[in-house]
């Protein structure tokens, strides 16, 4: 007897387990018994989980294009709008291809502590029946859907960096940097934190949906990029107001909407845990949005839209590592802290230090990611409403979280610096000053975003 399709296999496995149970005798213990009595049957995906993971992958794509592209695009000047859109869209395309060729394999195979191997390069050996384990023993999802889901993470992370050097990077340089960065910075980070052999995973670092891998990683690369590319021509002299807060608001909203795929999807199952991650993603975001708004209102006199949505994004970032691990009230606290600190990081601190991180990738993603990663170590405590982890001590967990944060900062900081340098030497990072004046849209892409 062979099963060609997994749903049949599913029925069979269930039947097998139950039948075995039936014969093992009735009683509350028999399900346990059944599980033990049927070791040979490979688990098959639950279609509810599969449906949810398909949706989650789609949501993360939507949060990138058009979400992130619009969030960033709205904040640049009209003449650079199209360049930001092209950059984000192209990053998604390029990383998608790299991911299936070798990225997935480097991230999720092997026995290395820092990087995987090439055994699944070109997705070798993976079929529609292959499965990936979830966090629950015996529960699996189709490997293809896991590949898609993780692919969208690999796509959005380098796209986040775009904000830091927007309005001045050369398109060809961006493409080359992206290829190098995902290969040498992102895949190793993903492997370290999320793969069972990775050293931060083994250390017990908690990162539910990507605080270190995605946000600290991208935020730090952004800061280095802003420093190495230098300021935009005219920065601090000419006004550079966002050309369309409408687009930025659409983008922020889609980020929120899509982030449920990111955070609740990271639960890998459609159950109460995903619902908790969703709820936390709601409330932390709301709390951070209002925290930034009120702080700005109090200190600058106006409750701004840009502040409100920036706060919301800071909240989304901060709750990312914590989403399925802490309680809703902890998420409110987390959100408020992230909203206030990221506000100062993106305004006073940035101005004081004087770097030109065009769209505050560092102030929001890196700082927000650090806040989230550290507070996850605290708020995961059952006493604080968290779900708890085995053998938890607050000090111990906090230390582990701290180590993970430092590793992410250092790995991304040094790795990115080297790669920027390489790209600069090979093809040059910055567009010419004339190109910058004319706008990257015409200079690099030969098109204009608007012809009203």
């Amino acid at each position, binding site marked *: 007897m062979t099963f060609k399709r997994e749903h049949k296999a599913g029925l069979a496995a269930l039947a097998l387990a139950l039948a075995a149970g039936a014969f093992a005798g009735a009683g509350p213990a028999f399900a346990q018994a059944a599980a033990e009595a049927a070791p040979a049957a490979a688990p098959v995906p639950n279609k509810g989980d599969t449906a949810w993971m398909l949706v989650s992958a789609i949501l993360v794509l939507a949060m990138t294009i058009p979400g992130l592209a619009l969030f960033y695009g709205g904040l640049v000047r009209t003449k650079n709008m199209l360049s930001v859109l092209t950059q984000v869209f192209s990053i998604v395309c390029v990383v998608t291809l790299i991911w299936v060729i070798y990225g997935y394999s480097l991230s999720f195979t092997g026995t290395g502590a820092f990087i995987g191997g090439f055994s699944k390069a070109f997705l070798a050996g993976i079929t529609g029946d292959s499965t990936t384990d979830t966090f629950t023993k015996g529960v699996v999802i189709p490997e293809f859907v896991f590949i898609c889901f993780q692919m969208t993470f690999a796509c959005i992370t380098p796209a986040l960096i775009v904000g830091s050097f927007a309005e001045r990077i050369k398109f060809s340089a961006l493409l080359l940097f992206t290829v190098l960065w995902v290969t040498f910075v992102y895949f190793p980070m993903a492997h370290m934190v999320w793969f069972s052999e990775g050293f931060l995973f083994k250390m017990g670092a908690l990162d539910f949906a990507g605080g270190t891998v995605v946000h600290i990683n991208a935020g730090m690369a952004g800061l280095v990029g802003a420093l190495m590319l230098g300021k935009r021509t005219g920065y601090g002299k000419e*006004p550079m107001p*966002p050309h369309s807060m409408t687009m930025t608001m659409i983008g922020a909203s889609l980020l929120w909407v899509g982030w449920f795929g990111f955070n609740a999807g990271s639960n890998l199952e459609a159950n109460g845990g995903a619902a908790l991650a969703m709820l936390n993603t709601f409330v932390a975001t709301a709390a951070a949005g209002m925290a930034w708004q009120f702080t700005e209102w109090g200190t*600058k006199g*106006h409750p701004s839209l*840009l*502040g409100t949505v*920036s706060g919301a994004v800071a909240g989304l970032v901060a709750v990312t590592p914590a989403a399925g691990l802490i309680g809703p009230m902890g998420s409110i606290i987390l959100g408020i802290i992230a909203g206030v600190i990221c506000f100062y990081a*993106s305004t006073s601190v*940035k*101005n004081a230090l004087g770097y030109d991180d065009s769209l505050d990738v560092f102030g929001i993603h890196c700082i927000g990611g650090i806040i989230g990663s550290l507070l996850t170590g605290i708020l995961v405590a059952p006493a604080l409403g968290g779900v708890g982890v085995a053998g938890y001590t607050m000090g111990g967990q906090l230390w582990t979280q701290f180590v993970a944060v430092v590793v992410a900062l250092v790995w991304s900081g040094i790795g990115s610096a080297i790669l920027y340098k390489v790209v600069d030497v090979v093809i040059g990072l910055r567009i010419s000053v004339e190109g910058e004046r004319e706008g990257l849209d015409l200079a690099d892409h030969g098109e204009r975003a608007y012809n009203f």
Partner: protein
Amino acid sequence: MKFVVAIIKPFKLEEVRDALTAIGVNGLTVTEVKGYGRQKGHTEIYRGAEYAVSFLPKLKIEVAVAADIADKVVDAIVGAARTGQIGDGKIFVSSIEKAVRIRTGETDADAL
């Protein structure tokens, strides 16, 4: 013929247009402009960056008229566009030597 150029507050357009048609002016051309003057602008804040915006939205009205009614035109605009508050705008009058209606080729007074 005279060329009357008026810079006014945007929400006064309909009233000025009505005042001009009331005195027989049947054509005019309007441009969106930004004005700098005594009227103070405002500050816009986008995250860490504060911009003092000193250029304010205004409308420029251009109307070519026969020389004899130029003063009446100026008065009509002043009457309709005045709010009494700073930034109400200016009117400038100059001469034109020739006017042509493209459709017919009529010139000067006939062209208006």
